[in-house]
């Protein structure tokens, strides 16, 4: 690395640091320095000017240190930053300040040591190449692990719950991948179909007395019909306009769920949705109703409340695998190739005789129906649904899973769902830093894997393999 003279090595970082410190001061004064707190006499200001200044100084020092490291002196910077990070918890000033100092110090230390040992940096950042064999084998390994997961002793109720949640998002991510990944349509309102499926199941099971297995296909069908009805007009729109309208559709669906109280009982939600049964043959209870069988009696085992949960796990696993099988199959069909062709170039595709409207509508409606099935599953698992569960944030999370995983990549969606849903659930005690970690992960993806975790596209047909 080029070593600039000391004077120069300090001057520029000093200037950059001052600028960053000033910006931090402007931001920190109102945010950190002037918090309000509620008292008996109403809202009052409790100025914390020293804290705000301390934050600005910390930002100045951090930027300055980074600058010095970049100017060719990373080793001392790394050492000092590490010491600061270690010492931070012992500073008795403000707890947030200590936390910020620790995180900032670690960050500077990491950056400086990456600069100090460039080969290491290369190995960590640029050198991460997932070998194709791993991608090919990974699905089988993951699947095998998942199938035996509920039967292993390490799994407890909480872990199984998290696994079910992750799988629900995997299924949603795969469903949305049909629209976003294959057909290239940015759908920001996918949660609407999730909601329609959930409400369809809840209402059918309560008012019509349908079992989960009877209502499941109807819920999927309802969502598909909604997709057809909505998709018909809005698929005429292009790109950004389409995205905005789907965003509106998602919100409208939620508002209808809130306001159509006679049907959906409004924001109170629908409770006491009938539980899942063992294919309609037996119930998961210790004491079955008259004329019904209990699952444990059927198999001659002792009652365990976790049976239902394990069954639910296998149901969502099967549903998710069904989506996956469907996508894998349809990619090799004219329809799937037409989706991709329209994504690549709609003008050329139409000149070859592809009916844009019909093909896009099929992608949208099929993705919708998978979303509806996931919704029905969600309703039967929770036993309770309310409009709150179907906010825009859900659409955003599902979309983030698809984008993070690599648009169009099935395995990428699984990894992204684990990172985005599973990990935060596992480390609940760090809940405060969830958003921070999420931001860091997003930045890391943008820098190192701008086209998603897995961005390889497998051809749907090969001349070599063709007979």
């Amino acid at each position, binding site marked *: 690395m080029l070593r600039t003279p000391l004077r120069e090595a300090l001057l520029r970082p000093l200037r950059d640091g001052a600028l960053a410190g000033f910006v931090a001061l402007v931001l920190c004064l109102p945010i950190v320095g002037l918090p309000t707190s509620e008292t008996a006499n109403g809202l009052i200001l409790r100025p914390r000017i020293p804290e705000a200044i301390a934050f600005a100084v910390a930002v100045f020092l951090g930027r300055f240190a980074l600058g010095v490291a970049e100017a060719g002196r990373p080793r001392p910077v790394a050492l000092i930053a590490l010491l600061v990070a270690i010492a931070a918890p012992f500073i008795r000033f403000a707890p947030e300040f200590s936390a910020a100092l620790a995180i900032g110090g670690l960050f500077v230390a990491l950056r400086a040591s990456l600069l100090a040992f460039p080969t290491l940096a290369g190995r960590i950042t640029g050198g991460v190449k997932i070998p194709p064999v791993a991608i090919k084998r990974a699905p089988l390994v993951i699947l095998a692990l998942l199938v035996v997961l509920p039967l292993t002793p390490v799994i407890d109720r909480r872990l199984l719950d998290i696994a079910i949640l992750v799988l629900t998002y995997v299924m949603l991510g795969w469903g949305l991948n049909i629209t976003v990944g294959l057909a290239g349509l940015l759908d920001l309102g996918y949660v609407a179909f999730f909601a329609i499926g959930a409400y369809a199941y809840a209402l059918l099971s309560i008012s019509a007395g349908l079992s989960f297995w009877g209502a499941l296909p109807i819920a999927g069908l309802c969502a598909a019909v909604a997709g057809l009805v909505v998709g018909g007009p809005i698929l005429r729109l292009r790109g950004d306009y389409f995205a905005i309208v789907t965003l509106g559709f998602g919100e409208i669906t939620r508002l209808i769920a809130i306001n159509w109280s006679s049907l959906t009982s409004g924001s109170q939600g629908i409770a006491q949705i009938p539980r899942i049964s063992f294919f309609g043959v037996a119930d998961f209870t210790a004491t079955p109703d008259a004329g019904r069988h209990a699952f444990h009696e059927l198999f001659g085992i002792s009652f365990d409340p976790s049976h239902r949960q394990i069954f639910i796990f296998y149901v969502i696993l099967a549903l998710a695998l069904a989506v996956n099988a469907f996508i894998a199959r349809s990619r090799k069909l004219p*329809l799937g190739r037409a989706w991709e062709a329209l994504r690549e170039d709609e003008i050329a595709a139409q000149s070859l005789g592809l009916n844009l409207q019909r093909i896009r509508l099929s992608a949208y409606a099929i993705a919708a129906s998978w979303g509806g099935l996931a919704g029905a599953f969600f309703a039967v698992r929770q036993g309770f649904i309310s409009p709150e569960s179907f906010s825009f944030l859900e659409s955003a999370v599902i979309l983030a899973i698809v984008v993070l995983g690599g648009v169009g990549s099935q395995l990428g969606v699984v990894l992204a769902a684990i990172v985005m849903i599973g990990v935060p659930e596992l480390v609940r005690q760090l809940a405060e830093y969830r958003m921070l970690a999420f931001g860091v992960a997003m930045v890391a993806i943008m820098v190192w894997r701008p086209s998603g975790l897995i961005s390889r596209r497998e051809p749907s047909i090969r001349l070599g393999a063709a007979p």
Partner: protein
Amino acid sequence: MSKLLSVEHLTMQFGGLKAVNDVSFTASASAITAIIGPNGAGKTTVFNCLTGFYHPTHGRIILQREAGGTVELQHLRKHQVAARAKVARTFQNIRLFAGMTVLENLIVAQHNRLQRASLFSIAGLFGLPAYKNAEKDAVERARFWLDRVGLTASADVPAGSLPYGQQRKLEIVRALCTEPVLLCLDEPAAGLNGSETAELARFLRELRDEHGLAILLIEHDMGMVMGISDHIVVLDYGRKIADAAPAVIKEDPAVIRAYLGEPEAA
């Protein structure tokens, strides 16, 4: 030569501008018809009217069907022109499915036939043999054309990664995979070097002579146009100023003034 396409009084108006003004011409089966003229003369607009991208303000475009009878193109939508009338086209700026492989590009071109064979995906989802056979045929057709233009070795690479000249070729064979009766090529030699242009000319002649295909060609490379065309239509400011065999066009004073220019004094 029998008449395949007749364009009658075609007019395309954009606001106050008549991009194509009362143009009539015919194209014969098994022949290469070139449309030439200066930039902005309305050549591509004629193509866009033919292929359903524009709906002409006035005029008729009548295509003879193989099975007898005629079909009028001016009312058809983009995908219907390819699907029903069997008119295929390429674009001035190459439009491939860049992320998909060369072979996939050619399979997509056979979408409608395959879609029927897969019973609109239902038979395909369950892997019924009828669909498998149709797909095998489609791959064979693709392989046939790839062999013809020497792209077989690149069949499984993304189309976007091909060199420019090969992308041009791929776009033409992709159009051919729709099994058209009329192939419309919009400046197929643009950006090609001398030997690539010569190879293209040879290929187009082959299509006409061996496959009996009718070709409509927009091109600025006069060497190629004069060499392979059976018939040339000249447009200038949206109007047709000449319509004859190449030898006649070369000598036409109006064409020389508008487009070809005076031969340089030797």
